[in-house]
């Protein structure tokens, strides 16, 4: 008996539609976040992440409506993020039904935001998302979807984020994201072993073995993927049985 490793599908949306990897077999409308959420909830996903990757001000009400509809389908936790810059932004997605919020660029620009959110909603509701990119002998923090360097070290930033009140780190490898070559094991292991909070590994997943590796060698507490789940390359149910057969603790669907 111990804490299960979590498998987390991620929906990248433009506010109302899932915009990446939207070829889900068996769904009439593969771009509909609500239909995908219901599917993953039934398939045994441990949590769901919904991101607003456009995060434009005028699309905000649409995104909040998406969160409300997605939350209504779920009996598992929901994390929402993208464009959260203030306490009020976070409150809006939490009132819409999210259990946790992710912060990324806004926290880099104003680290005090992490503390504000943590004091208001508790550390368990604040996920610091970090997009890390290898640079010489360390990993550089990047912002704006990996396009700009934030000129700081990922390990130091993760530790600072935890000290400021983040309850979890969502760690994306910019080098691996979209490659389907597997998670970034050295990055994840280095960060996971250096912080006192759970770490969600993201970027590069394709094969069941990638998940086994990130849990065993990468010391990840949870693993996140998007398109491989959306396009039916990998079923969550089968993935969990694969991991359980290798003695990796997961919550098996009934």
């Amino acid at each position, binding site marked *: 008996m111990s804490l299960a490793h979590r498998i987390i599908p991620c929906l990248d949306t433009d506010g109302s539609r899932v915009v990446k990897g939207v070829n889900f077999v068996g769904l009439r409308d593969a771009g509909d976040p609500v239909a995908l959420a219901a599917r993953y909830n039934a398939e045994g996903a*441990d949590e769901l992440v919904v991101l607003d990757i456009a995060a434009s001000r005028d699309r905000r009400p649409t995104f909040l409506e998406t969160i409300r509809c997605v939350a209504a389908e779920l009996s598992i936790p929901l994390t929402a993020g993208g464009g959260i810059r203030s306490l009020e932004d976070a409150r809006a997605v939490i009132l819409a039904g999210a259990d946790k919020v992710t912060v990324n660029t806004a926290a880099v620009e104003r680290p005090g935001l992490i503390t504000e959110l943590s004091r208001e909603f508790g550390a368990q509701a604040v996920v610091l998302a970090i997009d890390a990119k290898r640079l010489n002998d360390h990993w550089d923090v990047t912002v704006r979807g990996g396009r700009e360097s934030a000129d700081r070290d990922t390990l130091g930033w993760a530790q600072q984020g935890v000290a400021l009140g983040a309850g979890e780190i969502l760690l994306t490898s910019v080098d691996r994201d979209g490659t389907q070559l597997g998670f970034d094991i050295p990055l994840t292991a280095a960060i996971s072993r250096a912080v006192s909070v759970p770490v969600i590994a993201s970027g590069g997943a394709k094969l069941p073995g990638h998940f086994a590796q990130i849990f065993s060698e990468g010391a990840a507490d949870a693993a996140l993927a998007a398109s491989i789940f959306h396009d039916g390359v990998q079923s969550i149910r089968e993935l969990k049985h694969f991991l359980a057969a290798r003695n990796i603790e997961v*919550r098996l669907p009934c």
Partner: protein
Amino acid sequence: MKISLLDYGAGNATSVERALRRLGANPERSNSPESITNAEAIILPGVGHYSALIRALDKQNLRPALLDALHRAVPFLGICLGLQALYETSAESPGLSGLHLLTGTVSSLPATVKLPHMGWNQLKLTHPSRLLEGISPDAYFYFAHSFAATHANGEVVALCTYGADFAAVIEKQNIFAVQFHPEKSGDAGARLLQNFLRLAA
């Protein structure tokens, strides 16, 4: 049945309300002493900081009505902070007084494990449980907390282990409480809520 879902503005009341509605129940969100006094069942959800819940109970003057209802044997379900509030006090806010319905205090889980305790974990049944009836002993429930009641006593019917053993399910006459989030725990959580509704009916 009139179910009062205490909504003090800091908790997870919306998720709990949704989960209950899926089961056909019709909870009423309440934050007044009157609605507690008239309730036939009371649910106290909560997530976040212990002080937010305790302060809200006192600011909205809910404490006397809640204690009175519990002494009148109105069925009660506390969730997460709603379990922790039953004890005398918590190390998260040592100056604040809990509901004193259970002896002991709430303390931090040990720093030897990653905190918060975040995710799905299993239970260790120590006594027959009415809340867990019909639920597989292997079932997982969703936890999100750093503090817990780490001492076992007669009211604890199931423990969870994370760094230390702590109270996961409490049953004391009409008082039920769980450290995890049944509203976020899939089918097992839904069954637990259904059990509570049946017990309260």
